[in-house]
């Protein structure tokens, strides 16, 4: 957004619509420098989250060091008290915000303030930091219970229970870091589960199937978040988590890429499970094509397209190398591979740049439409 605005102004300057003396002023109008207030807010937030994380780590180390000095119930009491304090902190922070919102309701609420308010309610805020702290304490408490009563429960259960129990907090906060914690816990739990139960099912789950499961699960997580965000209902604000969307997509595409590379190198002409291999290749192709179509035409975004192109390039390279290195002439194979790599990367870059421009134009158009409709709305409101 910022670079786009800057380049537009630069364009106007080139066209001679802005006097050389005024360029700097125009830039500052289009993209104001952050005020001291904004810097303070940023630093305060960073310190707040660091503080919460360090406090959590501190409690865990304290327990480990004083394992024998504290009785079972004392240990639980300490962690549970901290958990309750974090929840109390959430309540207090929420109440303070309620007061300020009541005051704001009395006056005319400016659009900017309004956005900031949503940011404060669903993004980084003191209240949500408290929920994050409570979630970390909960993990410490679960681990403590597990270690104190050495029941030897399977490790995946700890992470799964932890993820499930903090779901309400993540939903209430609608906050990137908490949802990210949930998603990471789910992935860890899945990995540990597959490690200990891969052979429970009637057939043996091979490594390649486990990778496929990872890819699919993360894809489902990505779809859940991006679809929930698109829906026009109140709940969408609870799922507005760009970080979770981006990282689950990255995990999913990496999983699928790993899968297809495995398939390519494992492909064996006189192996009787060729059928399965074909299914994996099909799954990969269908996923990549649908991701591409969706993010190219339905909801244009550069990041998913970059991932898809990278994945496809990796697949092409491995297909080529698995074929070429079986021939005797390795030097020629390296040469051809080099050329293909150069060709693929420059082709991808060219497309990405082109799409970038197109998407920019589209967003500018929609922005104009949006601002027009806003003006209309304001107009009707004033009438």
């Amino acid at each position, binding site marked *: 957004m910022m670079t786009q605005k800057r380049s537009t102004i630069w364009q106007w300057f080139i066209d001679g619509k802005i006097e050389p003396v005024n360029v700097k002023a125009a830039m500052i109008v289009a993209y104001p420098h952050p005020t001291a207030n904004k810097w303070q807010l940023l630093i305060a937030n960073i310190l707040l989250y660091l503080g919460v994380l360090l406090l959590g780590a501190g409690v865990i180390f304290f327990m480990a060091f004083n394992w024998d000095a504290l009785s079972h119930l004392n240990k639980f009491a300490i962690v549970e008290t901290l958990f309750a304090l974090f929840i109390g902190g959430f*309540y207090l922070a*929420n109440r303070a915000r*309620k007061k300020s919102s009541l005051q704001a*309701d009395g006056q005319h609420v400016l659009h900017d303030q309004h956005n900031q308010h949503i940011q404060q309610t669903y993004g980084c805020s003191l209240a949500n930091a408290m929920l994050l702290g*409570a979630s970390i304490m909960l993990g410490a408490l679960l681990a403590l219970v597990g270690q104190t009563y*050495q029941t030897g429960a399977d490790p995946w259960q700890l992470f799964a229970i932890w993820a499930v*129990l903090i779901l309400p907090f993540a939903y*209430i906060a609608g906050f990137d870091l908490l949802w990210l914690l949930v998603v990471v816990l789910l992935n860890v739990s899945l990995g540990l589960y597959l490690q200990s139960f891969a052979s429970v099912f009637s057939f043996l789950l091979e490594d390649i199937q486990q990778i496929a499961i990872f890819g699919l699960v993360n894809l489902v997580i990505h779809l859940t978040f991006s679809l929930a965000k698109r829906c026009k209902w109140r709940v969408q604000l609870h799922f507005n988590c760009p970080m979770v969307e981006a990282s689950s997509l990255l995990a999913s595409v990496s999983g699928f890429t790993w899968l297809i590379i495995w398939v390519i190198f494992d492909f064996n002409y006189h192996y009787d499970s060729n059928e399965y291999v074909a299914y994996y290749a099909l799954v990969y192709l269908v996923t990549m094509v649908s991701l591409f179509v969706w993010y190219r035409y339905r909801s244009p975004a550069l990041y998913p397209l970059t991932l898809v192109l990278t994945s496809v390039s990796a697949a092409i390279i491995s297909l080529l190398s698995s074929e070429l290195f079986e021939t005797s002439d390795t030097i020629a194979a390296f040469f051809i591979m080099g050329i293909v790599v150069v060709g693929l990367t420059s082709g991808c870059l060219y497309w990405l740049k082109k799409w970038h421009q197109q998407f920019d134009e589209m967003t500018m158009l929609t922005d104009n439409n949006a601002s027009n409709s*806003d003006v209309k709305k304001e107009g009707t409101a004033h009438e």
Partner: protein
Amino acid sequence: MTSNNNTLLNSRQLSKRSLWAIIAALVILALINYKIFTQEQLLANGEVILFELAPVDPRSLMQGDYMALNYDIARVVSQSVNQHSSTQNNHDGLFIVTLDKHRVAQFDGLYNGDALTPTQRLIQYRVRDGSIKLASNAFFFQEGRAADFEQSKYGEFRVNQAGQLLLSNMIDKDFKRI
């Protein structure tokens, strides 16, 4: 974000969020404390049963604050489980032990629903990755006490009627708690 005036949270919604967070927290605490309570009950009222430890190779697996455990009985259970080849690879099950005068458990057989004699007890076991697990296969202790626990010869468990196990102490060769 699309500008949508409905998204402004009013004070009632904020209090609702507080309320839900507090309810969630209470439910979580209730669940965990109930779990703690049942485990404490088992520790306090469960019957004491000792399992002889089998040396874990290498014994220096101790990593400061925990040691890996293996039980003598696990070998026998494992053999018995392998004979019933129809069973799945990873599963949970029950077996029967008799207790001697020091309450040390001896393996009798896998449980198949028969009535128990007065000296027999049910024990839950789990098979993971081909090895038998009795409750925990690790014992956690405070950093720096590794030398004390090298003396341990038995693991002391608390067991209830259903065969649920909790590892509670390490016992040396003279049947003293470490």
